[in-house]
C-alpha cells in the first residue's frame, strides 16, 4: 500500500464519473415524481454527511484501506468477516452495475444481442483496465469526464435550441408536500448514488494529498449532485413528470426530442455512450475496491485475483435476477435494508471506536 499515488484531479474525475455513472441515465428519485430533482439535492446533503464520516476514518488511518483498519479496530476475529463482507458487497455492487448497463443497452439499442455477450465484453474491458492498475483507471476517467461533460453541454444547448424545454412542467414544486420527497430520499437517494461513496474508503489511501483529498472528493460529489439534479429537471421539463416517471431511461426520450430544422436529430446515440461510460466506471470502481480488499486481506498480489473476480462479477450479474424488473425491485429493497448496514452502521461503529481510542491514547500534556 501507499506506493502508488493518484493526483487530486484524477480523484475528482473518477468521483464525478462514479457518481454520475448509471444514475445519469436511469430513472432516479422518481418516487417523488416532479420533485425528483429536489430529492437528489437533499440526498446529496445526506451523502456529504456520510462522506464526512468516511473522511474522518481516512484521516485517522491515512495509509490503510477500509478492510485493514476494520480489522485493526475490531480485532481479527470480528474484523476479518467484516472485511470479507465488504469485499462481497463490492463485487455484488459491481455485478449489479453490470446488469444495469447490459440490460439497458439491450433495451435501448441492441435488442437481439444476448445479455451474456454484452456483459462479457463490458467486464473484459473493465478487467483489462484494472489489469493495468487503479491509477490507469483514474487517468482514463479524466478523458471520459471531458467526453461526458461535452456531451452534456452539447445536448443541453441543442435541447434549448429545439425549444422542447417547458419549465412550467416542473410546477407545482412540492405539490404533494415535502413527504414524498423525504420518502424518496430515505428509500433511495441518500444511498444511491451518494451512499455508495463508501467504496472510496478503499481508494483514499492512494490520495497524493491527504489534507486536500477529501475536500476534492466532496466537491466532486456536490458537482455531480448538481449535474444529476439538473439532468432530472431537464427530463421532467421536456417530457413531463409522468412520461419521465414511466421511463426506465428518461434521458433517452429526452434527447430524442432534439430536432433542429429536421436536420440534426436522433442524437440518442450520445445517451448510449454516456450509459456505457457511466456503467464502465461505476463497475470498475467497485471492482478495483474488491481487488484491493482481496489483495490486502489475503496478502495476494493485486493481479492474481483479477480474472477469478471478473468471472464472479459476470455471473453475479447474470444470475442476479431473471428480468430487469426483478433486478430493479431487488435493488430498491437492498437500498434501504442491506446497504445502510454497510454504509452507515459499520462505519459509525468504526468511527466511535477510533474516536474513543484516539481520545484515550492522545498524548496528554504534562
Amino acid at each position, binding site marked *: 500500500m501507499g506506493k502508488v499515488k493518484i493526483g487530486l484531479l484524477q480523484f475528482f474525475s473518477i468521483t464525478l464519473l462514479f457518481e454520475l455513472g448509471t444514475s445519469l441515465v436511469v430513472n432516479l428519485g422518481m418516487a417523488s415524481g416532479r420533485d425528483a430533482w429536489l430529492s437528489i439535492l437533499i440526498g446529496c446533503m445526506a451523502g456529504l454527511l456520510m462522506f464526512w464520516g468516511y473522511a474522518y476514518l481516512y484521516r485517522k488511518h491515512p495509509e490503510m484501506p477500509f478492510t485493514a483498519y476494520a480489522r485493526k479496530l475490531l480485532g481479527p476475529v470480528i474484523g476479518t468477516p467484516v472485511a470479507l463482507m465488504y469485499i462481497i458487497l463490492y463485487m455484488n455492487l459491481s455485478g449489479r452495475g453490470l446488469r444495469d448497463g447490459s440490460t439497458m443497452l439491450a*433495451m*435501448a*439499442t*441492441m*435488442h*437481439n*444481442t*444476448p445479455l451474456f*455477450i454484452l456483459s462479457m*465484453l463490458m467486464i473484459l474491458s473493465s478487467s483489462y483496465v484494472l489489469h493495468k492498475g487503479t491509477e490507469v483507471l483514474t487517468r482514463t476517467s479524466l478523458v471520459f469526464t471531458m467526453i461526458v461533460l461535452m456531451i452534456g453541454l452539447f445536448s443541453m444547448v441543442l435541447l434549448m435550441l429545439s425549444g422542447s424545454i417547458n419549465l*412550467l412542467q416542473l*410546477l*407545482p414544486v412540492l*405539490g*404533494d408536500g415535502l413527504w414524498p420527497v423525504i420518502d424518496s430520499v430515505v428509500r433511495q437517494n441518500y444511498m444511491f448514488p451518494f451512499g455508495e461513496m463508501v467504496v472510496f474508503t478503499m481508494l483514499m489511501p492512494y490520495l497524493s494529498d491527504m489534507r486536500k483529498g477529501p475536500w476534492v472528493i466532496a466537491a466532486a460529489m456536490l458537482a455531480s449532485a448538481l449535474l444529476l439534479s439538473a439532468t432530472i429537471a431537464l427530463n421532467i421539463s421536456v*417530457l*413531463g413528470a*409522468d*412520461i419521465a416517471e414511466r421511463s426506465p431511461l428518461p434521458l*433517452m*426520450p429526452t434527447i*430524442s*426530442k432534439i*430536432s433542429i430544422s*429536421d436536420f440534426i*436529430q*436522433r442524437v440518442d446515440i450520445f445517451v448510449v455512450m454516456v450509459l456505457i461510460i457511466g456503467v464502465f466506471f461505476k463497475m470498475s470502481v467497485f471492482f478495483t475496491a474488491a481487488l484491493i480488499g482481496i489483495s490486502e486481506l489475503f496478502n495476494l498480489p493485486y493481479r492474481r485475483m483479477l480474472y477469478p473476480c471478473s468471472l464472479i462479477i459476470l455471473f453475479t450479474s447474470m444470475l442476479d435476477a431473471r428480468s430487469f424488473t426483478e433486478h430493479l425491485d431487488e435493488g430498491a429493497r437492498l437500498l434501504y435494508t442491506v446497504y445502510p448496514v454497510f454504509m452507515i452502521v459499520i462505519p459509525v461503529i468504526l468511527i466511535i471506536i477510533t474516536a474513543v481510542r484516539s481520545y484515550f491514547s492522545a498524548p496528554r500534556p504534562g
Partner: protein
Amino acid sequence: MKKNKPVRCLLLILLLGLPILLTGCWDSVELNRRAIVSGVAIDRGEGETEKYVLSFQVIVADEISGQNARGISPVALYTGKGRTMFEALANASRQTARFLSLAHVRVLVVSEKLAREGIKDMMDVLERESDTRLTSLVFVAKDQPARDILSTMTVFSKIPANDLVEKLDTTSKQFGYNYRLEVDDVIRGIQLRGGGPVINGVTIDGNREGADTNDNMKTIAPRAVIRVTELAAFKDDRLKGWLTGDAALGTALLHNKIKGYPAVIRHPHEGYITFDVYQSQVELSVEGSDPEHPVFIVKIIQQAAVKESPNSLNLTSPKTLENLSQTLIEDTVQKMRTAVEAAKKYNSDYIGFGQLMERSNPRGWKKVKDHWEEIFAHCEYRIDADAVIRHTDMRNNSFQVNP
C-alpha cells in the same frame, strides 16, 4: 520461456478471436436490408381480429436519388393487420422484402373512425418502442381513411409524408391555427384530467381517382391535394369534434403556439381591413383560492402590421391606428371567447385550465379534480388583450383616399 509457449499460443488465438466480438454487429441490419418508413397510417379495421390496419409508406431509395431509378413510384405503401399495433407491424412483413425501419417516421395519421373510438391503446406502442420516436407528427384524417392520405402523390416532395410535414410548417407560420403536435404532446394531452389533446386534421381535396399515380401531378391543378385542416378536439382519448375558424385560432392562441396569422376586421363603414399579426404572447393565470369557483385570466399582447386597407381611412393619423388596434383587440378577445366556449361545448378542458389550476393551487386541485368537468363548464374567465399596430407596410394611405 518454453513453459510459456502454450499460454502464448492461447493468447494469440484469443487475440485473433476477440476482434470478431468487437465489431458489435450482432444486431446489425445493413442498409440494403432496411426499408425506411416515412409515414404510418392507422385505420380501424373490421372486428376485433383486424382492429388495427397499419399502412406503411416506405421510401424507395432508388427512385428518390440515383441513376438506378426505374421511373416507378417514389414510395410504396404496405399494409398489415392485427389485433394490436405490434402484431399489425409484424404482419406487414409478409409484404415487405426488407425490414421496416421505424426510426424515421415523420407522420402518423390516424383515421377519424379510430379517433372517435379512442386512441389511447395505440399510443402505448408508439412511446414504448425504442425505434419510433417522440418527434413524429400526429394527424387525424378527416372523413377519410388514413391510408388515403399517405397514398396521394404530391408535387413538392417526392415523399408525401415530407410534403405533409412541410405543409404544416408553412401553414403554422402563415395561417395560424395548426401547429406542431408530436407524439408526446398527444400523450400529455390524453393525461389532462377532464381534458384531452388537440390534433391537427388532414384531408384530401379533390378527386381521389388516380391520386396515387403520377397522373395526379400531370395537370396544372393537381387532382387531389393533401391539405392540413381543422383541429381535432378530443375528450380524454376520443375525438369529439372539429374546431374551425375562430374556435381553432383561439385554441392555438390559448396554447401560445401561434406564430403569425391574418386578422380580418370588418370596419363599420369602410369594409374589410386585414392585419398580419406577427407576434402574440399569451400568459395564463388563475385566481384559484376558491377551487370551486376559479377565475382564469388570459393576458395577451399582440403586434401587428396593416396588410390590406382598401378604403379612405387616414392611416397617417395615430388616432386612426389607435382605433384600429382597438378593433383588433376586440377581434382577438372574440376569438378566444369562441375557443373557450367551444371547449365548454365539447365538455373537454383541452385548453389546460385544470393543469393551470394544479400548478397554482395544488391542494385545491386535489379537491376538485374528480368533478373538474362541472367546474370547467361554469368557470369564469377574463381576457386582457392588448394589441399594437407597429406599421402600415410600404404605403400609409390607400390610393383610394385621393382618387
